Structure formats: structure tokens, C-alpha cells
């Protein structure tokens, strides 16, 4: 989204392909592991946890950045299908709209303030 993810600059699809394949492979491997070992966390999260040490300590993993950057820049459009699926649930939403909005507003502000205060309490910013 925007210039949030600066790791992989826009480039040709070919340059992005290796990283794209790596991320797909890690996501699928994570999924397979989670299914077979009955782990309680999502497979893609395992994939992320495998990719991170490669990025931090692996040498010559730079070839994957263009593909990973391409994927993260387009996360927005991947979310759209799930959102459109809401059309099937208007009944559920319409009778609870106000309390739902109240929960969203109150908890979002509470979470933000709690996080900032916890940072200070834990000794941050000294």
C-alpha cells in the first residue's frame, strides 16, 4: 500500500518471480505442516517465521525482495473478495450496527492508548 513497503521497488514481473514463488512455497509448506501436525496457528504465519531468519541472517536472499514487495504492496486488492462476501450477511449486520460500531470505536481507542502507555511504562523513550 503506497510507499509503506520500501523493500522491493517496482520492477519487471520477471524480477519479482523468484520472491513470489518463494513466498507461495513457504505459505504452502506452512499450511501442509500445520495440517499434518495439527498445530493451532495459521500456516502462513509459520511461513513468515521461516522467511524472517533467512532475511535477517541469510546471505544472498536479496533476490526475494522484489517479489515479497510486490505481494505486500497489493495486499489491499486481495482483501476485497472477502469484504464483498459481506453482501450475504446484511441481516446479521443491520440489526447490530450501532452496538458493533460502538465496540469498534471504543476498543480501537483503548488499544491505541494502552499500547502507547505500556511502551512508556516498560521504560521506552528514555
Amino acid at each position, binding site marked *: 500500500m503506497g510507499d*509503506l513497503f520500501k523493500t522491493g521497488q517496482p520492477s519487471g514481473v520477471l524480477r519479482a518471480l523468484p520472491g513470489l514463488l518463494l513466498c507461495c512455497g513457504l505459505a504452502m509448506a506452512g499450511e501442509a505442516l500445520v495440517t499434518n501436525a495439527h498445530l493451532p496457528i*495459521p500456516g502462513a504465519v509459520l511461513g513468515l517465521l521461516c522467511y524472517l531468519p533467512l532475511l535477517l541472517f541469510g546471505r544472498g536472499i536479496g533476490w526475494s525482495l522484489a517479489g515479497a514487495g510486490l505481494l505486500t504492496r497489493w495486499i489491499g486488492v486481495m482483501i476485497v473478495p*472477502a*469484504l*464483498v462476501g459481506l453482501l450475504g450477511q446484511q441481516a446479521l449486520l443491520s440489526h447490530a450496527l450501532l452496538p458493533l460500531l460502538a465496540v469498534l470505536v471504543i*476498543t*480501537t481507542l*483503548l488499544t491505541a492508548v494502552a*499500547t*502507547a502507555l505500556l511502551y512508556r511504562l516498560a521504560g521506552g523513550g528514555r
Partner: protein
Amino acid sequence: MIASAIICAALIFGFALARALSARLGHPPWASPVLVTALAAAGVLAASDASIDGFETAAYPLRWLLAPALVGLATVIAANWALLRSEAAPILIAVTGGTIIGIASALGLARLFGLDRQLQQALAVKTVTTPFAVAIMTQLDGPVALAAALAVLTGVIGAILVPATFDRLGIRTAVGRALGVGVSSHLVGTDWLARRDSRGGGLSALAFVLAGLVASVVVPLFWRLLA
């Protein structure tokens, strides 16, 4: 197969347009390209009275890519590794604590207001960014669309209200503010912040990815209370 390619291409094109429109308006949170594209797609679907199931099947390749994209978010942690190392303990305590407070407060209030069980389940992941929300809900067999929608809405609400709330409460530490925006308003909030302050944007991005990791472990633990 062909319908799928056409619908995915149309969504990508529509999203690119929405992104350009949002840039032209100066990136206000309410014109989030995700929301605009989803509303437009929903409008087209309603007008053409095509079935939602058919649309979801056709758009599945795009949704499938969310998992590889989540893996790609590791680059966000790697890019901000030096920042994380410089204050590891306070950052991790703030993000972990904030995420747990976010989950617990959403579940508590949802119960208090007597919301539907499905809504309660979806609210459990409102404080994580949508790729994580979708991954966690898919894993737990929960309401995926609802969770995705509430996560996006949370981001929009947060981007509009959180900075002003910080000002009003006198919370001025830049790092604390960035972490608060990241955990509470994830992608949309971070996008908003990154356009004004790039170091803050990096920290906020780091915070929302870490919050997603925390939620991936914590939400399944809470899940039995909701099932």
C-alpha cells in the same frame, strides 16, 4: 477459469484506479482504496444480480494470495530490525500487551452488548491486519468475511480518531504513538502515518506485523470461550 481471470483482472484494475483516486484526494482514511473497490464491486454485483457464491469462487485466486503476502510481511520486520533491537523490551511489551488488551476488550464489550456469536468471533481479530485476520479465521473455521470487514473498518476508524485522541491525552512520545497506531489501526493507520513520518510509519508497520503474530497465538487460546 476465464470468468476467474476476468474478475481478478477487473478487481486489480479497479483497485489501481481507487488507489490513484485516493492519492488525488490526499489519502484521507475514509477513501481507503480497499473500501472503495469493495463497494464498487458490491454495487456491480447487486446491479447485475450475479450470485455472491459465483463471485467468491471466481475471485478465489486473489484471496489465496493473501497467505503468500502474509509471508512477505517478514520483510517489514527485517526492514525495521535495527529499530526493534534498539528498544526490544519496551516495544515487545507494548505490542504484546496492547494486542491482548485489544482482543480481550473487544470480546468483553461484544458480550456485554449481547452481540451475535458470529460477530463476537469476528471481533476477536479486529485488532490485527486483514491478512492475519483472514488466516486466523480460516484456521479456526470462523466468519472470514465478517472478520476481514471489521479489521478494515477498525483501520479506518483508528486512522481518523487515534492521532486526535493521542493529542487530547497528551501522549507525545513518537515511538509510543507509532506503536499505538500500528497495533490499533494496523494497515490503514500505518499508511496514514507513513505519509507524514517515515520512521513512525516503519515502527507502526513493525507493530502491526508483530501484533498479527501475537494474535495468531492468542486468539486460538480464546477461541473455546466463543465456540
